[in-house]
């Protein structure tokens, strides 16, 4: 029991993920600044932002709408992100856990933050938040099928292994999945899915700053917004980690933790570069991008896997 609590709150859990995610968030902002020939924020900037929102600012409740759901949603987002992160990180750090089919549980837990943002923004009763929530819903409908297909392809490639532990083990005893043509196709589709899941720039219509004034987060202030920031930090860490676990070999024991860190940083760097070199697309374009092109890519990858490539 105590070790589970330790896992949840300290080591691969909330604290570790929050610190790692905050660092990655700084990395993202710093790379963005360097791409634009700026200097960028200091290393501890995400911590200043988080503690300012948590400790200093007051919480303003919306006049209309449901206050309880409005306040519950950010906590639900943090909980979903942390649980998903636990299921991903424990196998990634070679701690023998998980069960047959836990990859499906990870899939559902990873959608929990997005769903709680929708619930929270609709509970605030703000029309701009409602527009943002409807966009987020359409975005989820667009990318979830692709994400599920990617996971199906990975399961197929690993020889019908339904838990993350055996998928990583299958890669470590053989070759990493990204070392084949189908693996590269899956990686491309996976990076775009993560981009949409994190609502980064080509797919940031739900929080579109220019037209919706932060959209789904518009009514959040103070500690609830700090919780949303925390959930976003955690998601920025665990989604690249999930991709590394699915396609890029996870972590071999020993000194290879450096490789793991480099792989995760590489994926985040890719996400940041995509975000800095693309304009925001319309929701219709995003839906077509995922439902037609990305699905096509993953289906081609599945056919290639069936052929043994």
């Amino acid at each position, binding site marked *: 029991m105590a070790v589970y609590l330790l896992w949840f709150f300290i080591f691969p859990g909330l604290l570790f993920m929050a610190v790692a995610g905050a660092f990655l968030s700084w990395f993202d*902002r710093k790379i963005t*600044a360097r791409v*634009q*020939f*700026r*200097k*960028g*924020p*200091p290393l*501890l*900037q995400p*911590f*200043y*932002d988080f*503690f*300012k929102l948590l*400790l*200093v*600012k*007051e*919480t*303003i409740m919306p006049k209309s709408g449901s206050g309880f759901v409005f306040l519950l949603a950010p906590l639900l987002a943090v909980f979903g992100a942390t649980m998903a992160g636990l299921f991903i990180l424990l196998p990634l750090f070679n701690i023998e856990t998980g069960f047959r089919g836990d990859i499906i549980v990870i899939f559902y837990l990873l959608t929990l933050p997005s769903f709680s943002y929708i619930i929270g923004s609709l509970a605030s009763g703000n029309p701009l938040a409602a527009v943002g929530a409807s966009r987020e819903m359409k975005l989820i409908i667009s990318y979830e099928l692709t994400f599920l297909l990617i996971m199906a392809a990975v399961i197929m490639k690993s020889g019908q292994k339904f838990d993350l532990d055996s998928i990583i083990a299958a890669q470590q005893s053989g070759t990493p999945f990204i070392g084949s043509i189908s693996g590269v196709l899956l990686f491309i589709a996976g990076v775009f899915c993560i981009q949409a899941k994190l609502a980064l720039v080509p797919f940031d219509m739900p929080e579109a*700053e*220019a037209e*919706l*004034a*932060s959209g789904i*987060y*518009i*009514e*959040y*202030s*103070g500690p609830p*917004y700090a919780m949303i920031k925390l959930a976003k930090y955690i998601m920025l860490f665990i989604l690249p980690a999930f991709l590394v676990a699915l396609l890029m070999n996870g972590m071999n024991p020993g000194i290879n933790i450096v490789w793991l860190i480099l792989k995760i940083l590489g994926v985040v760097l890719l996400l940041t570069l995509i975000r800095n070199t693309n304009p925001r697309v319309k929701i219709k374009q995003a839906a077509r991008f995922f439902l037609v092109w990305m699905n096509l890519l993953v289906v081609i990858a599945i056919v290639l896997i069936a052929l043994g490539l």
Partner: protein
Amino acid sequence: MGFKDYCLRKSLWVFHFGGASCNNCDIEILDCLTPRYDLERFGILLVGSIRHADVLLVNGSINRRDKDRLLELYHQAPKPLLVVAIGACGCTGGIFAEGITFAGPVDKIIPVDAYIPGCPPKPEAIIAGIVKLAGKK
């Protein structure tokens, strides 16, 4: 200066309210976020929603219609909130001070923490003002 204060000063998120402005100050404010001046190295971000703001930048002359909006924004913002009046119009009214629709400089409507005069103030002046604001006790 305690830990809370320090965090607030290191991460000032700015909401920009333009009154009946001639747009010169707006352009100079946007200049501060460009690569040459880069206010993000002090942790300053431009946010879209007043609920996330720590600093309310007000520029332009405030006429009677703007006054209601400004008051509403001020009451919607989570406290503590710092208010900065930018430009001659924001600080004193400038050439509009005796106009028929003029509703008073910003500090007659809401309490102001820092004034940055100029028509328009240079980005260096705005940065100097922000730095003084961040160091103010």
